[in-house]
């Protein structure tokens, strides 16, 4: 493959000029017209690509002790012996702590070992010679045990149906696979400590680690200046954090405890597997009358958290009866993962819709337009515009193609309820004219730091270069954990309030200097103006500050701000695939991702969120699968070699389209909604190309080949009958 063959990620759809980007002025908050800042790159981008940015994992301290868990190698096993003395005899091994003897899944920890260096750590674990007795284990949901019982109400709905679809859809366990693994380095200095954590919740870590450190909150700080991804798995400190906390407080020494890639796959959470069984009835034109949907969620050793969001509520499905069962097995417990429950539900729902459309002989896009309940009508517009952009008119009827390479089109939808939480922000303005925004929340790679700086600069009406951001510290003002897509929408109102407070104080200084009241003046384009008249420059004002700095404070309790946008963020994604019917290889060629998201603070980072969601969605559709050996329960692919993540050659052209509804003027989060529909749309596109649905993720070549074969057999049977 030559560079010319590589698919660019386009930042603008071909139909971008048709998209409404202007907001009405009637309810536009102050400065709204300028806050679409398209050209700003992440403030830390140079530091990240040069390696200057230090992650928690990069932190080391003199005298640091290393920790690693003693982990069960099998799905279910009992520790029947180990040689702690031999492990302790290894030079550099500090201690061995064994706290249990039962491992209920591969990666389950029964204690930990600590050593002066990394080499001693691995040699110590080897010398420990942990001997495990393997016990029978269960490695996932057994589809035969999952019986769909159809209620009377559902049966009644089916009575009037022209067709009934019975199908089983399944999705694998997906791991978060963040680039930076879980863990922390605690620089413990006896009576004080700094905790360098890889987290998506600075203050959550502070709360949790406090009980281990036995230090008052004013004696330790949690820091996470740069975080290499979280995706929902990094709210809690985990076992690796608990080990570090225990060791740091007992030894009063710096401790390093980060998972390796294997531990990361095994024991830091996952998106649970799901089995969805449907029995739904529909009329001749595809109108869904109702039926029964059963969800079984594979939650590992947990007992809850396995639900899949089907029906999503986006489509009119008539009378749907629903059951949900959590299925425990010998695997790691799930944690929240980017739109928990939704991609697995959307996979089943979107593919089911395409199957219904095909049986009824109607266009699946037309069916969605008919069934979609979107009250804002945003998705209705997206369906029509997207169809033009992707060339839906070129779509061949499902099952009609017989060439080697077959082209397929799919579509899926998303909606996400906007959430938020309380947030405090400080903005310090210094005598030299620079400003520092302070927020304790974290930037897990999403661009939060940049968004805060852009908003502050806009509101203060000063160049972005003057604003720096201190982020990711429990010593900084309180901010939200990054979950539920809340970070931007929670921060924005507080940033604007802090900037407004700084302006108010600054204008009072102006009034003291040159007369009048503070309210006579305001900031505009780097100057202080009264009416249209410039009375002072920004730098001159700052030089006149009575002390080194002035601090504006903004607090938002999460209620009633024009800068937060209530309601649902709607989206639609169109997917075009090519399927090689002889090899079963699927290549996604193009994705158009519409996403409503309220007011955009920084176009580049917003588009980046959408592109990232689509990439993760395709990866889920085609590759990712935490595979447990059916005999032993051990994960056979605990690496990034066989646990495949979408790579450069697999990347389609992705065209994010930021959709601004006319009435949306506040800020919303974008982390989760774009990952919801992708896998379902890919599956629908593959079905369109091949003619038989692949109802299990990942859509591997062997599964596609089986579908191609089934379609050929069905085609022959059909031909024979007619």
């Amino acid at each position, binding site marked *: 493959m030559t560079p010319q063959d590589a698919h660019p990620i386009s930042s603008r759809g071909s139909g971008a000029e048709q998209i409404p980007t202007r907001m009405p002025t009637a309810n536009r908050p102050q400065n709204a017209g300028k806050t679409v800042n398209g050209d700003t790159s992440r403030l830390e981008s140079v530091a990240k690509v040069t390696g200057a940015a230090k992650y928690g994992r990069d932190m080391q301290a003199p005298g640091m002790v290393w920790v690693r868990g003693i982990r069960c190698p099998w799905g279910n096993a009992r520790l029947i012996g180990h040689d702690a003395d031999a492990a302790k005899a290894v030079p550099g091994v500090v201690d061995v702590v064994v706290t249990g003897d039962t491992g209920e899944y591969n990666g389950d920890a029964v204690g930990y070992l600590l050593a002066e260096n990394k080499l001693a750590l691995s040699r110590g674990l080897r010398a420990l010679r942990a001997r495990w007795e393997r016990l029978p284990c269960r490695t996932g949901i057994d589809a035969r045990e999952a019986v769909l019982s159809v209620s009377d109400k559902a049966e009644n709905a089916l009575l009037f149906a022209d067709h009934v679809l019975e199908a089983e859809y399944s999705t694998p366990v997906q791991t978060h696979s963040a680039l930076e693994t879980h863990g922390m380095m605690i620089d413990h200095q006896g009576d004080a400590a700094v905790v360098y954590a890889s987290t998506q919740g600075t203050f959550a870590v502070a709360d949790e680690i406090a009980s281990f450190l036995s230090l008052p909150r004013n004696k330790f700080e949690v820091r996470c200046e740069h975080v290499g991804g979280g995706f929902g798995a990094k709210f809690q400190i985990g076992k690796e954090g608990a080990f570090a906390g225990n060791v740091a407080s007992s030894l009063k020494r710096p401790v390093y405890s980060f998972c390796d890639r294997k531990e990361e796959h095994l024991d830091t959470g996952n998106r649970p597997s799901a089995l969805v069984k449907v029995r739904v009835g529909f009329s001749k034109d595809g109108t869904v009358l109702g039926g029964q949907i059963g969800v079984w969620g594979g939650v590992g050793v947990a007992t809850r958290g396995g639900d899949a969001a089907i029906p999503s509520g986006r489509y009119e499905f008539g009378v749907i009866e629903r059951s949900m069962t959590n299925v425990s097995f010998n695997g790691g417990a799930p944690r929240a993962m980017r739109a928990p429950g939704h991609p697995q539900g959307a996979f089943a729902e979107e593919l089911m819709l395409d199957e219904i459309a095909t049986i009824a002989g109607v266009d699946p896009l037309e069916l969605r337009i008919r069934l979609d309940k979107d009250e804002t009508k945003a998705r209705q517009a997206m369906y029509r515009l997207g169809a033009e952009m992707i060339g839906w008119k070129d779509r061949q009827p499902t099952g009609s193609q017989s060439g080697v390479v077959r082209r397929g089109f799919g579509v899926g939808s998303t909606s996400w309820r906007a959430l938020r939480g309380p947030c405090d922000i400080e903005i310090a303005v210094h005598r030299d004219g620079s400003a520092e925004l302070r927020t304790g929340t974290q930037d897990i790679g999403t661009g939060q730091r940049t968004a805060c700086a852009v908003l502050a600069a806009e509101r203060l009406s000063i160049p972005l270069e003057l604003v720096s951001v201190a982020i990711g510290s429990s010593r900084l003002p309180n901010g939200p954990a990054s979950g539920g897509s809340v970070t931007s929408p929670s921060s924005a109102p507080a940033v604007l309030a802090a900037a407004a407070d700084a302006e108010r104080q600054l204008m009072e200084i102006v009034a003291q200097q040159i007369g009048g009241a503070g309210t006579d003046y305001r900031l505009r384009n780097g100057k202080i103006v009264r009416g249209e008249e410039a009375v002072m420059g920004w730098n001159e004002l700052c030089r006149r500050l009575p002390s080194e700095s002035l601090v504006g404070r903004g607090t938002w309790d999460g209620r009633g701000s024009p800068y937060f946008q209530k309601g649902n963020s709607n989206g639609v994604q169109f997917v075009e695939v090519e399927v090689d019917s002889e090899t079963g290889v699927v290549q996604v060629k193009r994705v158009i991702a519409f996403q409503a998201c309220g007011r955009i603070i920084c176009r580049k980072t917003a588009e980046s969120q959408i592109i990232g969601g689509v990439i993760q969605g395709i990866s889920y559709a085609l590759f990712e699968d935490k*595979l447990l*050996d059916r005999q032993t329960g*051990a994960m*056979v692919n605990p690496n990034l070699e066989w646990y495949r993540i979408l790579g450069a*050659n697999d990347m389609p052209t992705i065209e994010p389209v930021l959709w601004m509804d006319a009435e949306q003027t506040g800020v919303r989060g974008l982390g989760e909604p774009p990952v919801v529909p992708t896998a379902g749309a890919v599956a629908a596109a593959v079905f369109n190309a091949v003619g038989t649905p692949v109802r299990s993720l990942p859509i591997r070549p062997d599964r596609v080949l089986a579908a191609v074969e089934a379609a050929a057999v069905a085609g022959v049977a059909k031909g024979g009958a007619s």
Partner: protein
Amino acid sequence: MNPFALLQADSVAEASAAAKDVRLSVLKAGGMDLLDLMKEGIAEPTQLVNLRTVRDPALRTIEAGRIGALATLADIARSDAVRASAPVIAKCAASAATPQVRNVATAGGNLLQRPRCWYFRNEQFNCLKKGGSTCYAVDGENRYHAVFGPGPCHIVHPSNLAVALLACDGVVSLAGGERATLPIAKLFHMPDRGIRDESNLEPGEVITSIAYSPAPVSGFFVVKERQSFDWPLTMAAVALKLDGRRIASARVCAGAVAPVPWSLPLVEKALQGVALDDEAALRAACAKSIDGAEPMRDNAYKLKLLPVAIRRAIADAAGAKEGQ
């Protein structure tokens, strides 16, 4: 990873002697595979003998018909001499791994890399290759395992380059032992002829170069699950001799289907005299590739892929011919 001694060899003779004399001594070229093995605790050498410090330019020279053992995959991929004399070899080298790996991995190291079987590579599975008594793939997760061979171990050979060289009747030159040369066809053995290792090299034997027969009409096709940085599900390499638009003779070899690079003499025979545009005859010949295959529970799909890969490799070779 355990501490080890590192010997920076000045000559092949020194390297060979060191490898022979010291127990658990391992020869290291690019070190790509060795690093993985050591990190997972599969290889625990007490001494690493670095071949890359040997300055002899012959070890790195590439010419039409011969490749130095220390030439990198990137060198091979961009060599005009290889691309003209045996395009299949250059293409296989170019398709392996990632640019970063290809810049470091060597021809010799690529041939002698250990299998990627996930039971072999995961420390806790004491499989047959590690002295255990079970091949976990038999009743376990075997979708990427071999469809040919009697066992008892069901690895697939990981080197695409070896398959291409086999199709070009490659012969390795050896130093440090009794033999001066060994055909690629005899470089590897099936698991029933020795399960702990894959090659027939004796301790201290060092590959210095690989000779191959010119194969200007040659090509390959690889099926990968992921198109970036992935191992083949199945691949095929062919070298053709043409008589006009007819195949006078063919060498047809497959990868990722057997514990060794896999020759397909039945297909070679069936291809003799077949016209390149006789689609039906080509299909019939390629269909013979799966004769004798014994798939496991989850890898029968490879039997669908293999004839396709060969057919496309023939098309690739014919295309290479037309490109000249």
